[in-house]
């Protein structure tokens, strides 16, 4: 059904969502690796507004923003539907996807970057958001039900990113006791072959941030302070 390209970066939690979705639907694509410190003309051409990855290019036409791309993929390739058909269930999935992006990820970064005197409150705030995700997955195999769906892909690499942010910021965000359902889900999710093939690993993230010097730019970074 046409030529598909993904412009992405291997450690991006937003990009892997797209690759997982395409693999789940059996869609062949060309992966174009982007160096975010030196953005290519092709990225700037296909996403002039935000200049960010991921970008999906289908028959030469670009789609940007991971949640928008996921819905486009779901509507274009019908195999293994990601979103529920029922409008109310779909709205709920969309709500939680926004929550993950706007609350969980942001608050985890804030906790990582917080100055000493703000750290405790920032960690509490991040854990409050994670607690809601834990509650959401309680009693379920996957967010999508028996098989993975839209929300599983969105939450996706969060556990690995959290491990990385914990080390970067010298904080504790998750543990199996506090968030048992989230912990169980993440163990199952990461074992799925197409997920395992392409998921940012905490060690790779730490490596990237320390070798690129980015760790030093993170205020309150335990890693930066130890260098």
């Amino acid at each position: 059904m046409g030529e598909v390209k993904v412009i992405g970066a291997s450690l991006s939690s937003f990009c892997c969502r797209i690759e997982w979705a395409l693999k789940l639907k059996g869609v062949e694509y060309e992966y174009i690796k982007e160096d975010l410190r030196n953005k290519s003309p092709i990225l700037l051409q296909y996403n002039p507004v935000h200049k960010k990855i991921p970008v999906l290019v289908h028959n030469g036409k670009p789609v940007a923003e991971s949640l928008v791309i996921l819905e486009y993929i779901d509507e274009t390739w019908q195999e293994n539907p990601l979103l529920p058909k029922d409008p109310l269930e779909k709205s709920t999935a969309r709500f939680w996807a926004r929550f993950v992006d706007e609350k969980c990820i942001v608050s985890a970064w804030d906790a990582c970057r917080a100055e000493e005197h703000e750290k405790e409150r920032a960690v509490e705030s991040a854990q409050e958001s994670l607690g809601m995700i834990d509650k959401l997955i309680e009693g379920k195999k996957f967010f999508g039900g028996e098989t993975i769906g839209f929300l599983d892909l969105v939450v996706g690499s969060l556990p690995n990113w959290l491990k990385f942010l914990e080390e970067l910021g010298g904080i504790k965000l998750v543990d199996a006791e506090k968030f048992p359902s989230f912990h169980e889900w993440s163990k199952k999710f990461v074992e799925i072959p197409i997920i395992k093939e392409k998921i940012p690993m905490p060690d790779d993230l730490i490596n990237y941030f320390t070798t690129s010097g980015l760790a030093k730019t993170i205020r309150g970074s335990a890693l930066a302070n130890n260098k």
Partner: protein
Amino acid sequence: MAKEVVLLDFWPSMFGMRVRIALAEKGIKYEYKEEDLKNKSPLLLEMNPINKQIPVLIHNGKPVCESLIIVQYIDEVWNDKSPLLPSDPYQRAQARFWADFVDKKVYGASRKVGSTTGEEQEAGKKEFFEILKTLEVELGDKPYFGGETFGYVDLSFITFYSWFHAYEVLGNINIGAECPKIIAWAKRCLQKESVAKSLPDQKKVYEFAAQMRKRFVSE
């Protein structure tokens, strides 16, 4: 029956206005409930316990939250008339992208224009105009962002127009001079009944905004 559809809202909210327009476009009868955000009702806290924010659409007792999610829900459930999103997946993706752009960019910048002073406000004004100019380029020569007809992106952005007078006075800016195409587009949208009846009076919004500004800024 109006009781089947309830909207928890706050009159100056540009997010609530989006839902009002969508409901009007589809000709849906509903019960409007005004929330006092300083004293949130038990119903709001029950229906949106996560964010505790308006708008919330309650359909047959079940809540839908987040304005753009609500608008898409309305479009999908009442799909027999006045489609808000395009039917083509690629056009739909573009519409979602631009509505997301409005969400991510316009509100933040406009807050800085209306609620800050000094350097922060100047930076906010610059950002605000950059964003509006990006939207002007996207609009191009089309009558609406949706093309020939009013659609999802128009709906997501037109609600900010009710705040333009407030931004102009509080920010000492002239939006019409900088972005005439946006003003022309807004006036075109306001000719639609669904939009005109869903947006509050600009002077009322200014009075509200001026009061809000006093809380954030001590001058």
